[in-house]
């Protein structure tokens, strides 16, 4: 299926959208006028160098008409022509009309296929299908789609749609999954904001059109028409855009694909825009907090603590423990009638608030304790990345910024359940946050260290007569490693926590059956999470070669895959967070066996991480210690080879073999 839907957009998401769109077929209000087809378009053929395989978008022409914007009327026309080169390319003929807004109306659809012979097959109105994808008592969502007739493995297809929308077209995904030979966008702008009273108040100097082109190898050509002085239209063109390549462990597609953002702003520069926003953040906080006497009362209990850091930490955990976090509802909470609270006073009185409000309360608690904390806003990097040059609100996470001794900030968030003090959620590490009221608007949120998120496992195993392994596991997790499990257990409900943990252990210790799971500190964010369990293999381990038993102890753990085996890489690598894993396996064997050979110790280290393996034997035991550390989850392209080497070294540990031989042989 090919569609113009913004990447990742799910029609069947549970967000309820009201629409007044009727399930009727669109009408044509323009006569059909197709561009002529040049001979060169027929000459487009598979070409490895140009990455043309199944087809290419010959051109895509977009017209975004905002001239009636002040009446909430925007018109979008998309005209796309595709060269189909094989069976796979035919799927571009199945088109779903993009869905931008509940009140959009489809004003025209034309489509056809053209053969080399000149024969054409045009889309009939009857062939346009309306799918009512969602309907309830109050709303419905209709999606239009069509399949272009007459498509062969060597043809050209083209279609044009026109939409009327109450919102502006703001994002052009230029890069497709096949090459784009020419892209054009005409933006018919609206400069008459003063016609609209609300816009006139908000933007007394008028609205200016802005654009940002991202992730393109060559610049987008821009013409200001008819002239710079009398600007009515911005005309963008670009040629030869390669296909977007999806790769494992990448930033979200929206942050990587070639694109063009379009928007209006009353500000004259990003600095002015963000400065204004940053300046407003303290006022928003004050508005929420109100008079603040209730905050003063709460912080009195921490006065006796010796240092600001100690008070900040105590206040953090007090807030996490004392207020019900409405953004994380357990079963018991769901069954109650618990409305959101509207102010800090109400939240403290009723002992509940959502995650953002908990952060606001915490910020004010710190300020009341004379710690110059500030509210900060960030964006979940698994969704998108902040575009600082773009003068519009982009954030979806709140944080509290606490000044550190080096003139920077430490970012914390008691509103994120089970997040320990001193940490930010991992999905905001490595990006910039907008800090309210500070001298520097954007501050980097550093990655945590690998030592912050550890998994330490100790396996004590006995080799049985049947060559099975049986024994115990004790595992300790900290940081993000622990929080992930805590959240999963919370979501599953306390009665199911053991099962959740057992399933996690099964994923990690794939050769074993897991039983008798016991967990400590499941809800204590400031303590390591400890798990104990019994392990058994139900089948003999290792390979018998003659009188030797060859055991690969590292393979008893999760398979050490190397996800970075591609020969080339287009995008930088981003994993979740830095981490450390330490595994200690001890295998006791009877006098029936002696140690024949042990693998050599291995150590590999580079700037991205280390991995090491150490094997010893003593008194009827073999002891294996394996360590893996990833220092940074972000790996720029130029360091990709180093990352491959690190993971290759880790993968090679799986082959480490201990050889036991029957005594006396």
């Amino acid at each position, binding site marked *: 299926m090919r569609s113009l839907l913004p990447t990742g957009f799910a029609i069947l998401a549970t967000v309820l959208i009201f629409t007044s769109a009727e399930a009727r077929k669109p009408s044509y209000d323009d006569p059909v006028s197709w561009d002529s087809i040049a001979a060169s378009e027929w000459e487009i053929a598979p070409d490895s160098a140009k990455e043309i395989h199944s087809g290419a978008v010959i051109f895509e022409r977009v017209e975004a008409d905002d001239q009636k914007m002040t009446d909430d009327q925007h018109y979008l026309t998309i005209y796309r022509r595709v060269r189909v080169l094989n069976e796979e390319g035919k799927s571009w003929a199945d088109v779903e009309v993009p869905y931008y807004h509940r009140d959009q109306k489809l004003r025209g659809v034309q489509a056809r296929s053209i053969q080399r012979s000149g024969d054409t097959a045009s889309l009939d109105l009857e062939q346009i299908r309306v799918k009512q994808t969602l309907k309830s008592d109050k709303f419905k969502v209709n999606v239009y789609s069509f399949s272009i007739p007459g498509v062969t493995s060597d043809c050209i297809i083209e279609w044009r749609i026109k939409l009327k929308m109450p919102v502006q077209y703001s994002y052009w995904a230029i890069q497709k999954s096949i090459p784009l030979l020419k892209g054009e966008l005409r933006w018919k702008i609206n400069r008459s904001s003063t016609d609209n009273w609300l816009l006139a108040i908000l933007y007394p100097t008028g609205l200016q059109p802005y654009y940002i082109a991202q992730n393109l190898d060559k610049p987008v050509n821009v013409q200001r028409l008819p002239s710079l002085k009398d600007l009515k239209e911005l005309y963008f063109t670009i040629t030869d855009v390669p296909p977007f390549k999806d790769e494992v462990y990448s930033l979200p597609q929206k942050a990587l694909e070639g694109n063009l953002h379009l928007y209006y702003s009353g500000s004259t520069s990003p600095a002015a825009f963000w400065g204004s926003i940053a300046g407003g953040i303290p006022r928003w906080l004050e508005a929420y907090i109100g008079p603040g006497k209730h905050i003063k009362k709460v912080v009195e209990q921490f006065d006796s603590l010796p240092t600001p850091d100690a008070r900040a930490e105590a206040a953090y955990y007090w807030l996490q423990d004392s207020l019900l976090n409405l953004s994380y509802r357990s079963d018991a909470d769901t069954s109650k009638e618990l409305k959101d609270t509207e102010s800090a006073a109400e939240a403290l009185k009723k002992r509940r608030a959502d995650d953002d409000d908990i952060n606001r309360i915490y910020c004010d608690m710190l300020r009341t304790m004379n710690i110059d904390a500030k509210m900060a806003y960030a964006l979940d990097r698994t969704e998108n990345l902040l575009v600082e040059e773009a003068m519009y609100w982009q954030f979806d996470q709140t944080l509290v910024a606490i000044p550190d001794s080096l003139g920077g900030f430490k970012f914390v968030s008691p509103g994120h359940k089970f997040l320990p003090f001193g940490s930010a959620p991992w999905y905001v590490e490595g990006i910039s946050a907008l800090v309210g009221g500070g001298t520097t608007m954007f501050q980097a949120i550093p990655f945590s260290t690998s030592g912050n998120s550890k998994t330490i496992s100790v396996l004590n195993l006995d080799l049985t007569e049947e060559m099975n392994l049986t024994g115990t596991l004790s595992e300790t997790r900290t940081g993000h490693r622990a929080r992930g499990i805590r959240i999963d257990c919370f979501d599953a409900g306390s009665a199911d926590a053991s099962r959740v943990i057992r399933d996690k252990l099964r994923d990690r210790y794939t*050769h074993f059956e897991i039983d008798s799971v016991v967990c400590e500190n499941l809800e204590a964010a400031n303590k390591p999470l400890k798990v104990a369990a019994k392990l058994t293999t139900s089948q003999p381990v290792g390979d018998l070669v003659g009188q030797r038993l060859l055991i690969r102890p590292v393979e008893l753990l999760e398979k050490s895959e190397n996800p970075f085996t591609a020969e080339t890489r287009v995008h930088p690598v981003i994993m979740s967070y830095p981490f450390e894993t330490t595994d200690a396996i001890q295998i006791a064997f009877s006098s029936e066996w002696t140690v024949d050979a042990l693998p050599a110790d291995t150590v590999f280290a580079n700037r991205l991480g280390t991995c090491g393996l150490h094997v010893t034997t003593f008194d009827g035991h073999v002891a294996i210690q394996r360590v893996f550390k990833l220092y940074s989850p972000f790996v720029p392209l130029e360091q990709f080879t180093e990352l491959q080497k690190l993971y290759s070294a880790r993968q090679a540990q799986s082959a480490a073999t201990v050889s036991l031989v029957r005594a006396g042989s």
Partner: protein
Amino acid sequence: MKVASSRDISALAHTDAEWITLSRVETMRVGANGHASSHIQVAYKVLKSSGITSAVLVEDTYVWRKVKGVHGWHILPTGKSETFDAATLVSVAPNAAADSHDDSHMLVGAFEKVVVGSIVAFEYDVEETSDWAGTFQGCLMQRQQPVAWVQYSVELPSDWQLQFVLKSAEMVTVDSAGGKYTFTAMNLPFRPDEPYMPPWAELSRWVLINSFPSGPTSKVTHFPSWRDAAFWVDSLHFLPSEPNSEVTQFVKERFAADSTIDGKLRSIASFVQNDIRYVAIEIGKGRFVPRHSSATLRNRYGDCKDKVALMRAMLTSIGVPSRAVLAKVSMRAHTELSTPFQFDHCIVAIPDSVSPEMATIAEAHVGDWVLFDPTEPSAPFGTLPIHLYGTATLVAVDDDSCLMQIPMLQSGRSTRRYKADAALAADGSITARVQVVDHGNIAAYTAHRRKSISPADRVDSVRQRFTGTIPGVKITDYQSGEGGDSTWAAYTLSGDNYLQTSGDLKILKLDFMQTPEKPAFKKTERANPIWFGYPWEVEGEVTWRLPEGWTAELVDTLNAECRTARATLIMTASDGGFRCANFEAQDGGVMEASEYAAARAFRKEYERMTTAKTVLHVK
């Protein structure tokens, strides 16, 4: 609700069960006009938070199938209760893909505050106003989660008959009296997900029925026999499969270069399969009535029955007879139920007498017919998609041969043979020249896949296959091709650090073409049947050359066998090294849970083969 919630379900508690059906009672009444009306009462108890989203009302709706009179109740663990607001019902289109257009919806009703321990119940009516509604119906008694009580009743007009099948539902009791049939089951335990199971579509417990008047009927949608069903299918396909001048002219021009009937037939098959893209338009009667062949030809798209109608029209225009055939891809059809509505796919049957060459086709030859699926590009003419083997089909002929079973594919008909000449260097690196030849179904699938991806991706997909076993593997000098019913590939692979060392020991994995398998059957008990997959056979040989002065310890021959699969690994000495021969075959059959011990023993040995190693010695 009271009865349902008071049932003792302690025996059904299972640590992995997410919810339990306390009670499901469905009573269906079929009218003389064929319409059906059902009254349904269902109650669930939520056992885990993952079960919350399943304690809902979900019913398919169509133009001719409506849900009415929905009531619901929710009792919280605290004892507090609430009733369902029907205004919150939501209708959702289950399939939003651009190449699929259908008018079915799912009606979904749910309570907002359901928690673990909640009891949720719904009661509603379903009205089906098509005159074939009573023809094929079913009640899903159980899929995976436990069921305390389920009862399905069917009331027929006094002069009607019922055929029924208990699919994977041997424990269901059947009572009948005065035109009312009642199917009841209770205390159905939780069924875990286990490795190497048949698909849940096969394991789900169903009561399936077909009903029809005992005497003569004017309704074409009553099917007392398979001949009646076949006749009906043929009647639907008759007009759409008639060639008009547009189709006839097209065939004449397009396939003029093919001078023989066999050549034209194959070219037509290829055209319909590859040049008519698959787009499903299941709207109204379009669900089972094909579009006219000329419309499909003009559109260059259609679903399975549209493609069949077009192909038949084209064949008719060159004097080749054919028949539409109904098949089933989702779960096996039941020959005890003479209704065409249990099928969900359409293919073509051509008499094998149309040309001498037809008689030589092996895989797709069933009885006097050669079958062809025009929707599956990986199954060219002469082969069938693997999932059709072993299934029942309905050929639209007016005689008793209409019901036809496609035999199971023999494993020897879908084979891969490989040969590798490998050299191990003293530094532990390897270089090998590999040749792989596929025959039969595997060949068709492989050939299709290769054509679908770029040459660079073909090489990369081979490389990816070895990255887990050969660190830093490189693939060079890649070539591939097709010949007859086979497809081949040859390439050179090389990699460092293939040899493992442990102290002074040098350990070599015998066959790098085999991917190491993790233990699959870890548990000592088994609830579900065992199925290793579709039939196939692999035979391979790796000949190793070792560095001068190196020898290998010969490992004992490894054998593994169970009723549906077997495997062997044999290591023999050879000049300058050794040879490792590997053979694996599975016949696609299903083993019962009672055969688990044998299946487990097989897997244990098979997994050993995939990781088999030898120890090398340096003189």
